[in-house]
């Protein structure tokens, strides 16, 4: 165990030199496109964070930048969402996916030019879309705000990545299809389907009335469930055993987790319309599917937990592991919370409130984004053949983001419950009959303190992002040191010290 831990933490100490050389050649072949995607993702992360802070501040101090039309709340919030979803998260997902695909197929990257064009198109599309939102061309359809002149550009980029992934998979040398590859293939196939159907049925040839709501949430929930979640789980399934130097606990649990996710997640999106003007049977189907999501979540969580058991001490040393495990634990938590939110009685309270906002950030940030951070900490040294310049900055990054998002999710969940109870239940009246509802302005005033806590949490998270960006840039520009092959860990593992 000790030697394998050392081996996995430090790529230079692997005994199997031939295998290492092969991996190293594969890693090197991914360098240019992976760096393009990762560099863009970090830039978009900073842009998205800035808009997040502006939007958050405006929601408790509405006069702030009140006369700047392109930064009015409805646009600043939208710019935040699209910058982090399509700019940060998707770029990071592409980088992690292509790196994992190449490694798992044991194939050096072919057609790097294709990926380069894809990355250029993707970022062009995101830029055009962001400008479109700022000048008032947003579609105001949640998660699909980019105007119609931006989305075809994104689609071209995605088609190129998808085609590339198929080629890599087809020409891979690996005999076995690893669990991460199932998720990656599924994600790369599902997203363009979702995206094109949503575009056509909502923007180019709008479907009738509230079917639009169904299409909207079929898409938006599945972006999380069938694009980001599979990429995040693929990364966990790869890095967790890799860093720990032991196999995934159970192959059969992996299979069960994958197929139950594929079948149930699909239908869950309708829970965003519970109590709304859409057929009740679809709502009921959505609720059932949401509840069935407990199966893949528990199975996957259990599988990962049992993989970690007995090796948890490595959390003290490995930045990758710490981010990934934080993300994995929050995947379980947010998914369970999500299943409960689909219950009609709980949705009556939490729907239309900050509780949903907390839940969205719990999934998209505490799970997915943290897993992406962990992946970047593993991938970048291997494609650049340099180590992270500062362990202190990694530590700051971890504690600021983990602490900040925890504060965020708790504060907004509490806010949402308070808001939902006041908004949707009648207080007892004088004569034992239900009284009149709490005045809306009273609820608004009651929310201010939570919204201020959210801004504080946002500032803390931003500090983490700045630490990450500084470390990332520093790593890019620092010269490669000859012979320096020690990994940057939070502290040196005992067996590493012994080896010295």
């Amino acid at each position, binding site marked *: 165990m000790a030697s394998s831990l050392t081996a996995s933490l430090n790529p230079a100490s692997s005994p199997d030199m031939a295998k290492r050389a092969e991996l190293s050649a594969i890693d090197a072949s991914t360098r240019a496109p992976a760096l393009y995607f990762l560099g863009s993702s970090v830039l978009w992360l900073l842009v998205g964070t800035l808009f997040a802070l502006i939007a958050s501040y405006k*929601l*408790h101090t*509405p*006069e702030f930048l*009140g*006369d*700047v039309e392109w930064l009015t*709340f*409805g*646009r600043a919030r*939208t710019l935040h969402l699209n910058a982090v979803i399509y700019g940060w998260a998707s770029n990071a997902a592409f980088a992690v996916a292509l790196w994992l695909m190449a490694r798992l197929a044991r194939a050096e990257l072919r057609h790097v030019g294709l990926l380069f064009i894809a990355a250029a198109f993707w970022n062009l599309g995101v830029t055009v879309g962001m400008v479109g939102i700022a000048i008032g*061309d947003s*579609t*105001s359809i*949640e998660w699909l705000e980019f105007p119609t002149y931006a989305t075809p550009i994104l689609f071209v980029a995605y088609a190129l990545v998808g085609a590339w992934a198929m080629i890599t*998979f087809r020409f891979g040398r690996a*005999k076995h*299809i690893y669990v991460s590859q*199932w998720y990656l*293939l*599924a994600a790369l*196939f*599902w997203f363009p389907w*979702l995206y094109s159907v949503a575009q056509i*049925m*909502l923007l180019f040839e709008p*479907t*009738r*009335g*509230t*079917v639009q709501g*169904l299409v909207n949430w*079929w898409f938006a929930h*599945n972006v999380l469930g*069938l694009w980001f979640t599979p990429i995040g789980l693929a990364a966990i399934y790869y890095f967790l055993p890799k860093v720990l130097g032991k196999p995934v606990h159970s192959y059969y649990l992996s299979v069960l987790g994958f197929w139950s996710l594929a*079948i149930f997640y*699909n*239908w869950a999106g309708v829970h*965003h*319309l519970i109590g*709304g*003007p*859409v057929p009740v049977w679809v709502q009921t*189907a*959505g609720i059932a599917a949401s509840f069935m999501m407990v199966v893949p979540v528990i199975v996957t969580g259990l599988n990962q937990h049992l993989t970690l058991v007995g090796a948890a001490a490595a959390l003290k040393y490995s930045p990758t592991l710490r981010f990934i495990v934080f993300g994995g634990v929050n995947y379980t938590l947010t998914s369970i919370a999500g299943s409960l939110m689909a219950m*009609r009685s709980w949705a*009556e309270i939490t729907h*239309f*409130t900050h509780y*949903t906002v907390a839940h969205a950030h719990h999934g998209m940030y505490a799970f997915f984004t943290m897993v992406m951070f962990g992946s970047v900490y593993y991938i970048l040294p291997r494609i650049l053949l340099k180590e992270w310049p500062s362990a202190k900055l990694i530590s700051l990054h971890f504690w600021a983001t983990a602490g900040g998002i925890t504060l965020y999710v708790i504060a907004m969940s509490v806010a949402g419950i308070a808001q939902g109870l006041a*908004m*949707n*239940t*009648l207080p007892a009246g004088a004569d034992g009959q239900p009284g009149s*509802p709490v005045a*809306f*302005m009273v609820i*608004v005033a009651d*929310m201010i303190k939570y*919204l201020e806590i959210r801004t504080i949490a946002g500032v803390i998270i931003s500090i983490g992002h700045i630490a990450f960006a500084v470390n990332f840039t520093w790593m890019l520009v620092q010269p490669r040191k000859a012979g320096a092959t020690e990994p940057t860990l939070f502290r040196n593992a005992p067996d590493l010290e012994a080896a010295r």
Partner: protein
Amino acid sequence: MNRAPLIFLGIFFALAFSWTGIILTNHLSYAKLQPVFDETEGKAFPQKLPGNAERGKEVYRDLGCVYCHTQQVRQPGYGTDIERGWGERGSVARDYIHEKRVYLGTMRTGPDLRNVGARFVGDAGRDWHIQHFYDPQITSKGSVMPPFRFLFETRAVIGEPSPRAVQAKLPPQYQPPAGHEIVLTQRGEDLISYLLALKDPALYPEEAARLYVPKAEPAKAPDQSAQPEAAP
């Protein structure tokens, strides 16, 4: 799981299943939702928005109003929408059939707007919206809605004052400098037209027969229930 074609088929059918179930079936079944002709009024409901209101809906879109305001009233007994006066009945699918884009919304930082046109009516309603857009604090102290002063223009009076000047409707501290006037831009006019037009009609007979209504309350819109149902 080493057979790539099988994995791919599974992946394909998983999404095809939900697309068929959630979207295609409803896309097809919604075709039977048609406007209902009301003989006493001689009109078919729901009605289409007038042109200036449709333009106002574009302003509603570009400013992102949907992120804080829903446009769906929950059914009686689920939440307190009816008690809050957000509508006389819950919203039904038929209400939205003319809409090129539906803004159901998912967040209620502000109140539901599905029937805001029933709460703020006529010239008084227009004046309220003017004050509220210029600075929400005028009408709703403590609101977290941002001001929308960019829907107004403060300009020097050249010759005759504009008939569209609105400063007379604003409190003293908002008055422009001498020789200036505040006018509502065309976008502001359109947006207010949209909000004044935004309301749903009384419940259609078919939905009235089907929707659950708590027993304690008298049936909503009794005058409608007696009418013959329009042929779809």
